[in-house]
C-alpha cells in the first residue's frame, strides 16, 4: 500500500539500523505507549535489529488493557438486559471481567444470549439504533485521543438526528495524565518515549512537550513502519546523548506539531475531563472523559443510574506491573502457563495489541518452530 510499503524498504531499514549501532553508547530504555507500536515492533523484528544497550519497553498504551475489570463488569451487567444491544470494537469482546465462568466477557455473555455486536465505527452503532427503534443500542466507548473524536462526532449526529435509543458507556481516556504519573513513579525508569503516532495526529506532537520540559524525557513521535520506528529511535538516542530532551516529529506525513484542532474541538464540545481508573495504575485525576451535561442523555450510566463495581484483579496476574513497564511478561507466574492467548487471564494477553499477547506470539520459542 502506498505510503506504507516505501517505509518498509529493506535497504532503508538496514541503513537506519546501522546508524543506530553506530550511535549507541550507554544503556537506554525507550518506552512505547501505543499498542499498535508494540505490535509493529514485534512484527518487524525491531528488537533484533538493535544493539543490546537499547531496551524497548511497553507502557499503558492499549485502551482495552487499561480498562479496569469493574468497568468490564459494568458492560456485562448491561449486556444481560434484554432490551439492550451492545455494540463494541472487536478488541473488547474477549476481555474478562472480575467474575468467573463462561459468561465473564462480552463474547461469553453473547453465547449466553446477550445481544452483542461488533462494529467497525461508532457511526455503525448509530445506524443500527435507527434501524432498531424499539431497542436501546449502547456503544462501548473505549479509546484514546485518536478514537474519541469519532465517538464525539457520532454523539453530535445522534443529537441532531434526535435518536433517543442510542447511547454510549463512556470509558475513554487521555494519554497525558498517565504519562505524567509514570514519570513521577519512582519504580519506572525510562530515558526516551516513542510518542504514539495516531494519538499525535489529533493531539499534536506539541502535546508531549511537557514531558521533555518538566521531566527531561526525550520524545519522538513515530509512525508504524520499520523506518518510522528506527528513525525515531535514532533521534531519541541523539537527544539522550546530548542531554537536550525535546519533541521531534518523525511522522511528519501524518502529524503536525499542533494536531487536528477541528477533531479536538468536536471532542471538547461533547466530553469533559473526569478522574478515571486505570488498570494497574489506579485512579488518575482528569485522565478520562465523561459526557458534558448537555449530552448526558447519551450516557447510559447516568440514564440508568448505573454504579461501576470496584475492580478486582485475578490472583497472580501482573498486568498492572507490565503496563507500568516494571516487569516483562515472562516475569509473570501466569504467562504462558495459566494465561495464554487461547485462555487469557489478564487484559495484556486478551487484547491482540497487549504486551503479553505480542510476547507470546513473537517471542515464544515454541511458536517460532
Amino acid at each position: 500500500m502506498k505510503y506504507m510499503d516505501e517505509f518498509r524498504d529493506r535497504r532503508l531499514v538496514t541503513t537506519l539500523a546501522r546508524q543506530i549501532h553506530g550511535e549507541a553508547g550507554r544503556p537506554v530504555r525507550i518506552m512505547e505507549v501505543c499498542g499498535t507500536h508494540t505490535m509493529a515492533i514485534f512484527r518487524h523484528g525491531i528488537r533484533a535489529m538493535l544493539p543490546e544497550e537499547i531496551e524497548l519497553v511497553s507502557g499503558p498504551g492499549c485502551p482495552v488493557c487499561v480498562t479496569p475489570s469493574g468497568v468490564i463488569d459494568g458492560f456485562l451487567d448491561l449486556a444481560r438486559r434484554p432490551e439492550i444491544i451492545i455494540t463494541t470494537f472487536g478488541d473488547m469482546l474477549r476481555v474478562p471481567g472480575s467474575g468467573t465462568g463462561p459468561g465473564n466477557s462480552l463474547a461469553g455473555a453473547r453465547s449466553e444470549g446477550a445481544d452483542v455486536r461488533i462494529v467497525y465505527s461508532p457511526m455503525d452503532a448509530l445506524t443500527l439504533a435507527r434501524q432498531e427503534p424499539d431497542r436501546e443500542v449502547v456503544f462501548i466507548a473505549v479509546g484514546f485521543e485518536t478514537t474519541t473524536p469519532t465517538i464525539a462526532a457520532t454523539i453530535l449526529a445522534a443529537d441532531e438526528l434526535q435518536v433517543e435509543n442510542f447511547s454510549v458507556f463512556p470509558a475513554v481516556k487521555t494519554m497525558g495524565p498517565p504519562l505524567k504519573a509514570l514519570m513521577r513513579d519512582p519504580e519506572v525508569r525510562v530515558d526516551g518515549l516513542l510518542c504514539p503516532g495516531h494519538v499525535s495526529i489529533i493531539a499534536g506532537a506539541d502535546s508531549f512537550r511537557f514531558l521533555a520540559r518538566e521531566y527531561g524525557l526525550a520524545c519522538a513521535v513515530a509512525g508504524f513502519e520499520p523506518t518510522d520506528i528506527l528513525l525515531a529511535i535514532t533521534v531519541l538516542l541523539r537527544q539522550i546523548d546530548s542531554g537536550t530532551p525535546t519533541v521531534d516529529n518523525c511522522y511528519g506525513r501524518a502529524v503536525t506539531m499542533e494536531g487536528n484542532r477541528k477533531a479536538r474541538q468536536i471532542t471538547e464540545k461533547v466530553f469533559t475531563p473526569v478522574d478515571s481508573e486505570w488498570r494497574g495504575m489506579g485512579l488518575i485525576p482528569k485522565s478520562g472523559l465523561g459526557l458534558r451535561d448537555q449530552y448526558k442523555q447519551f450516557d447510559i450510566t447516568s440514564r440508568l443510574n448505573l454504579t461501576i463495581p470496584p475492580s478486582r484483579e485475578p490472583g497472580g496476574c501482573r498486568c498492572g506491573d507490565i503496563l507500568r513497564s516494571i516487569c516483562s511478561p515472562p516475569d509473570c507466574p501466569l504467562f504462558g502457563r495459566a494465561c495464554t492467548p487461547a485462555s487469557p487471564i489478564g487484559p495484556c494477553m486478551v487484547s491482540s495489541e497487549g504486551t503479553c499477547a505480542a510476547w507470546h506470539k513473537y517471542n515464544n520459542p515454541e511458536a517460532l518452530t
Partner: protein
Amino acid sequence: MCLAIPMRVVEIQGGKDPLLDPERAIVDADGLRKEVRLDLVDRRPQVGDYLIIHAGFAINCLDAENAEINLALMRELAEEMAREDGETP
C-alpha cells in the same frame, strides 16, 4: 486499537444535506474500498488525496510532500553508506 491507515480518495459523495446526506469520501487501498465520514478533517479532500482512516472517519489528510522529503533523506543516507562501504572494502 489506534490502527489507522492511509487510503486514497476515489470519489466524494453526498453533501446535499449536512444532516441526512453528509459529505463522505469513498477511499481505496489495494482494492479495498470504504466509505468514510469527513466530519473530523479541516479541509475538503480532493480525489487522489490520501486520507488517514480510523474507525470509519478520516482523521487527517496525509502530507504527501512531507512523505517524499522523508523518503528522499533516508535514500540519500543509504546511498552515502553504500559509497562509504565501497571506499573501504
